[in-house]
C-alpha cells in the first residue's frame, strides 16, 4: 500500500466529530452574520463599485501585508508568517477533507509534498506566533496594549498547531511509513511516547484535544479580533471607494449615524496601536486616542446594532462583558485635528477622523456639550460668513495699499484668487495674501479676488461636523462662483483647496463643468517652470519645511513647495524628524483653532521644537493655520530670535525683491 493521507486513524466516533464541526461552523456563521448585520445597520449605505485600485490594494496590502512592513519589518514578518501559516494550514485541512470525502488524491509523492508543505507552514506559523508572544510579553513593544484576548488568541493558535504536530508525531511513533520522514515536525514528536502501546493509547486523546481546540477557534473567530481576517480585506477594498455625500436630513435618526465603511473600520481594527504612535494629540498625552475611539465605537455599534442583542440573555451577556452600556465618550472627539496621520500608518486603512466627524455631528446637533469658543465661532460664521470677525466689511482690509482686482466689481480675469477667511482676517496670515498678490502682479498673471463678497468655504463647519452649516456654505459659495463665472481657482489655504478639490464636486450637479482648483504652491511652481518668476536675490539661509496636513497627506503635494524653496539661490533645505507623509500636525486643523479644551496641549510647540532641532533659521509653511499656530509656538516655546516662521509666499516674494518694506533686513 503506497503512502497516503490517513484519516481518522484509530478514531471511532467520527460522527460525533462531524456534529461538533457542525456546531462550530454554525456558531462561526452566526458570529459572522451578527457582525455583518452591524455593518449593514449603517445609515445611508453607499454603493460599492468595482475598483482596480481596490483590487490592487487588496493584493498588495491584503495578501502581502505591504503596509504592515512599512516602518516595522519585524511586525511585517511576524504577521506574514502567522497569516500564511494560518491560511496554509487551513488550506491543508480543506485539501484533506476533499481527499476524504470527494476525491482521493493525497497519496504517493503528492502526499509527501503536501505533508512537507504543511510541516513548513506549521513551522512558519510557530515562528510567527513566538515572535508575537515575544513582542508582546518580553520585548513589550510600547504601542501594543495587551488585553486578555491578545494573549488567549496567541496561546490558542499555538496550542492548535502544537497539538497538530503532536497528533502526527504520536501516529508516527506507532507506525513510521517509509518516506514519512518529510514530516520532520511530526518526526520530532514521534520520539515522545515511550512505547507503541502508550502512543496508541494517548493518540485519541491528543487527537480530540487538537480537534476541540481547533473547533473552538473556529467558533470564537468572528467574536474575537480574529474577525479582522475577514473584515480587514473588505476594509482595504473599501478604502479606495469614492467618497459619497452623506447628507443628513431632518429625518436622520439621532446618534452618530455611522456609515458602512465606518462600521467595517470598527470591526476590522486589531488595536495594533500604530495610529496612537503618530497621532499628535495622543502622543502629546491629551485625553484622546484614535485606537480607543475606534474600540469604543466598535463596542457601541456592536451592542446597538447586533441582531443577537435583541435576545435578552445575549444582550445582558454583552452588557456585562463591556461592564456598562458602552458610549462613545463625547469629550474626546474634539481633540482630533483630522491630520490623517492615523490613516497613513494603518495597515488596513482605518482613519479615526472620519467616524469622529460623525460623532461630532451628533454632538453638534445635541448642542449642550459643544466647546465654548467653537459655539461662538460657528455662530459668527453663520451670521457673518467667517469664523473670525463679527463683521463682513473687514474682509478686504488686508489689501492695504495693494491694487487687488475685484472680480465682483467689474475686474476681468480668468484666475480667481480665493483668499480664505483666516488669510483675510488674521493679521499674521494677511502677509501670505499680500506676498502672493505681489508675486502674481510681478509675474504679470491676470487674476482677481471676490473682494468683500468672498464667502467662507465651510471648512471649519465641515471638520467639526456642523453639516447643515457646511451645506449652507457650499450652496452660498457655489452660487457666488457661478454668478461671477469662475472656473479656475487658486486658494491660499490647503483647507479651502482640499474642500474645493475633493468635497465640493460631490455637491455639484452631474454634468456641471468641474472647477479647476489649485493651491498657490502649484501656481507658483508653474510660474517658475514657465520662467515668469526667477528668484534672484541670494539668501544664505537654512530653512526647513513644514508639510501642512491638508496639502500633504490629503492631497499628496510634497514636492512643489520643496522645489520652490530649492530654487532660491543660497537657500538650503533641511528636513525635520517628521516630514512628507509622516509630517506632524501643527494642531490647528479639525476645528482645533476655534476651541478651548480641557487639558489641551500645545501641539504646535512639539512641532516647532522639531523645527528648531534642525538648526534652521526659518521654518516655511504653506497654510495660514500652520502659520498662525507655529508663529505662536515660537513665542511660547521661547524660540524668538532663534527661529522665524514664514509662509512660502513671503520667502519667494523676498527672493524676488518684493518683500514688505522695512522687513527686508530681517532675513539673511
Amino acid at each position, binding site marked *: 500500500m503506497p503512502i497516503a493521507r490517513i484519516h481518522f486513524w484509530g478514531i471511532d466516533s467520527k460522527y460525533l466529530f462531524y456534529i461538533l464541526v457542525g456546531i462550530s461552523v454554525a456558531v462561526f456563521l452566526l458570529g459572522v452574520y451578527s457582525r455583518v448585520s452591524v455593518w449593514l445597520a449603517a445609515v445611508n449605505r453607499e454603493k460599492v463599485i468595482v475598483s482596480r485600485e481596490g483590487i490592487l490594494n487588496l493584493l498588495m496590502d491584503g495578501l502581502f501585508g505591504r503596509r504592515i512592513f512599512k516602518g516595522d519589518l519585524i511586525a511585517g514578518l511576524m504577521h506574514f508568517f502567522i497569516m500564511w501559516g494560518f491560511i496554509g494550514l487551513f488550506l491543508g485541512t480543506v485539501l484533506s477533507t476533499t481527499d476524504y470525502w470527494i476525491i482521493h488524491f493525497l497519496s504517493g509523492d503528492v502526499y509527501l509534498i503536501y505533508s512537507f508543505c504543511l510541516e513548513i507552514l506549521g513551522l512558519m506559523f510557530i515562528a510567527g506566533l513566538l515572535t508575537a508572544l515575544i513582542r508582546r510579553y518580553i520585548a513589550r513593544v510600547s504601542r501594543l496594549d495587551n488585553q486578555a484576548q491578545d494573549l488567549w488568541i496567541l496561546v490558542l493558535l499555538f496550542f492548535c498547531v502544537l497539538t497538530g504536530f503532536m497528533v502526527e508525531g504520536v501516529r508516527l511513533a506507532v507506525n513510521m511509513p517509509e518516506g514519512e520522514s518529510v514530516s520532520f515536525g511530526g518526526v520530532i514528536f514521534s520520539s515522545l511516547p515511550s512505547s507503541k502501546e502508550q502512543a496508541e493509547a494517548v493518540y485519541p486523546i491528543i487527537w480530540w484535544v487538537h480537534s476541540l481546540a481547533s473547533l473552538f477557534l473556529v467558533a470564537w473567530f468572528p467574536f474575537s479580533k480574529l474577525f479582522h481576517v475577514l473584515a480587514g480585506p473588505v476594509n482595504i477594498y473599501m478604502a479606495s471607494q469614492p467618497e459619497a455625500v452623506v447628507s*443628513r*436630513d*431632518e429625518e*436622520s435618526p439621532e446618534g452618530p449615524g455611522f456609515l458602512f465603511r465606518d462600521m467595517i473600520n470598527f470591526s476590522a481594527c486589531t488595536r495594533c496601536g500604530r495610529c496612537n504612535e503618530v497621532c499628535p494629540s495622543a502622543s502629546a498625552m491629551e485625553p484622546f486616542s484614535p485606537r480607543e475611539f475606534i474600540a469604543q465605537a466598535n463596542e457601541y455599534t456592536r451592542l446597538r446594532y447586533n441582531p443577537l442583542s435583541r435576545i435578552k440573555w445575549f444582550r445582558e451577556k454583552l452588557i456585562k462583558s463591556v461592564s456598562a452600556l458602552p458610549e462613545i465618550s463625547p469629550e474626546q472627539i474634539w481633540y482630533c485635528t483630522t491630520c490623517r496621520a492615523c490613516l497613513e500608518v494603518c495597515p488596513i486603512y482605518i482613519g479615526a477622523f472620519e467616524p469622529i466627524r460623525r460623532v461630532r*455631528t451628533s454632538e*453638534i*446637533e*445635541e*448642542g*449642550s456639550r*459643544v466647546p*465654548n469658543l*467653537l*459655539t461662538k465661532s*460657528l*455662530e459668527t460664521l*453663520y*451670521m*457673518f460668513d467667517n469664523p473670525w*470677525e*463679527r*463683521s463682513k466689511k473687514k474682509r478686504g482690509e488686508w489689501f492695504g495699499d495693494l491694487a487687488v482686482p475685484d472680480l465682483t466689481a467689474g475686474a476681468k480675469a480668468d484666475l480667481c484668487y480665493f483668499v480664505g477667511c483666516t488669510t483675510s482676517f488674521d493679521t499674521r496670515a494677511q502677509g501670505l495674501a499680500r506676498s502672493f498678490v505681489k508675486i502674481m502682479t510681478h509675474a504679470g498673471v491676470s487674476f482677481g479676488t471676490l473682494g468683500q463678497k468672498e464667502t467662507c468655504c465651510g471648512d471649519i463647519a465641515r471638520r467639526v461636523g*456642523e*453639516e*447643515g*452649516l457646511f*451645506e*449652507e456654505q457650499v450652496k452660498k459659495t457655489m452660487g457666488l462662483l457661478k454668478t461671477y463665472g469662475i472656473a479656475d481657482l487658486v486658494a491660499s489655504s490647503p483647507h479651502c483647496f482640499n474642500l474645493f478639490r475633493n468635497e465640493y464636486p460631490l455637491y455639484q450637479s452631474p454634468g456641471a463643468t468641474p472647477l479647476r482648483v489649485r493651491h498657490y504652491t502649484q501656481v507658483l511652481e508653474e510660474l517658475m517652470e514657465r520662467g515668469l518668476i526667477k528668484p534672484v536675490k541670494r539668501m544664505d539661509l537654512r530653512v526647513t519645511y513644514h508639510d501642512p496636513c491638508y496639502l500633504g497627506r490629503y492631497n499628496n503635494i510634497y514636492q512643489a513647495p520643496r522645489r520652490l524653496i530649492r530654487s532660491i539661490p543660497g537657500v538650503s533645505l533641511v528636513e525635520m524628524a517628521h516630514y512628507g507623509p509622516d509630517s506632524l500636525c501643527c494642531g490647528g486643523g479639525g476645528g482645533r483653532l476655534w476651541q478651548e479644551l480641557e487639558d489641551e496641549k500645545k501641539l504646535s510647540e512639539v512641532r516647532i521644537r522639531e523645527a528648531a532641532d534642525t538648526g534652521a533659521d526659518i521654518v516655511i509653511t504653506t497654510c495660514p493655520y500652520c502659520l498662525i499656530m507655529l508663529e505662536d509656538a515660537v513665542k511660547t516655546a521661547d524660540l524668538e530670535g532663534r527661529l522665524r516662521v514664514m509662509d512660502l509666499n513671503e520667502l519667494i516674494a523676498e527672493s524676488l525683491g518684493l518683500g514688505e518694506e522695512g522687513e527686508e533686513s530681517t532675513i539673511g
Partner: protein
Amino acid sequence: MNIIVCVKNVPFTQEVDLVLDASKQDVKKDNLVYVINEWDNYAIEEAIRIKEETGGHVTAVTLGKEADEEVLRRCLAMGADEAIRVERGDLNPDASMIAAILSAVVKTIPHDIILTGVQSDDLNNGITGSLIAERLGLVHAAVVNSLKISEGKAQISIELEGGQDEMSQVTLPALFAIQTGINEPRYVSIMGIRKASKKEIKVIDASGLGLPGEDLQPSLIMEEMFMPPETEGAEMLQGDAGSLADQIIRIIREKGVSL
C-alpha cells in the same frame, strides 16, 4: 411643569456701525443681522434645563413679524415643545404694549413659570417681564442669576449691584427675568433649525386679543434718535501697536503710576 418663555428677535449691534434712518426715529436695519436677544437665549436655555430635569412643557412666545419666526425655530431646535408668534401687524410697540399683548396671550396658556430676559439688546427697557407679571397678578423677580425648582417653589438668587446677590424663595406660579451667565446656552445647529422648521408655529393676531384701546397706545413717544455727541469722549491716540504702547506708558506715568 408648564414653562412659557418670551423671546425677541433683535438686530445684532455689537461691533457694528449703526446709522440713523431718514426719519431719525430708528436706525437703518437693512444690513443688520438678526439674532435672539442675548438675555432671552439664557432664558430659553434655562427653561429647557428645567424641563430636562423635572419634565414639562416649554412654550416659546414672540411678538413680531413673520421673519421673526427664526427666533422661535431656534427655540424649538433647542427643545421647546411649542411656539407662538403674535403678529404685531402695523403696531410698533413699546415695552408697555409688548407687555399688554404678551400677557393677554400667556394668560390663555397654562403656566407655572414664565421666563423672560432681563432686557432686550435693542430698546434696553428692562421691564417687560415685570410688567407682564404685574398685569397677570403674578409674583416676579428681575435679574435672576440662579433658579432651582422644587415642590412648587423656586429658590432664586437675584443679582444686585456691588457684587451682592439677594437670595429669595418664590411660590409658583411666578415670572423670572433671567440674567446672562445663569447657564451656558447650548449650540443650535443648522440641522436642528431645519428640523424645527417642520414644526408648526401658531400665529395669533395681536389685534384679535380683545385688548382695550389704551393698551395698544404707546406710553412713550419717540421724538428722535441721535448719535452720541462727538465732542464727548476720548482723545484718540494714533500709530501702530508699538507707538500706542509708548504713548500709553507715558500717560500712565504722567498720572502718577510707576511702572
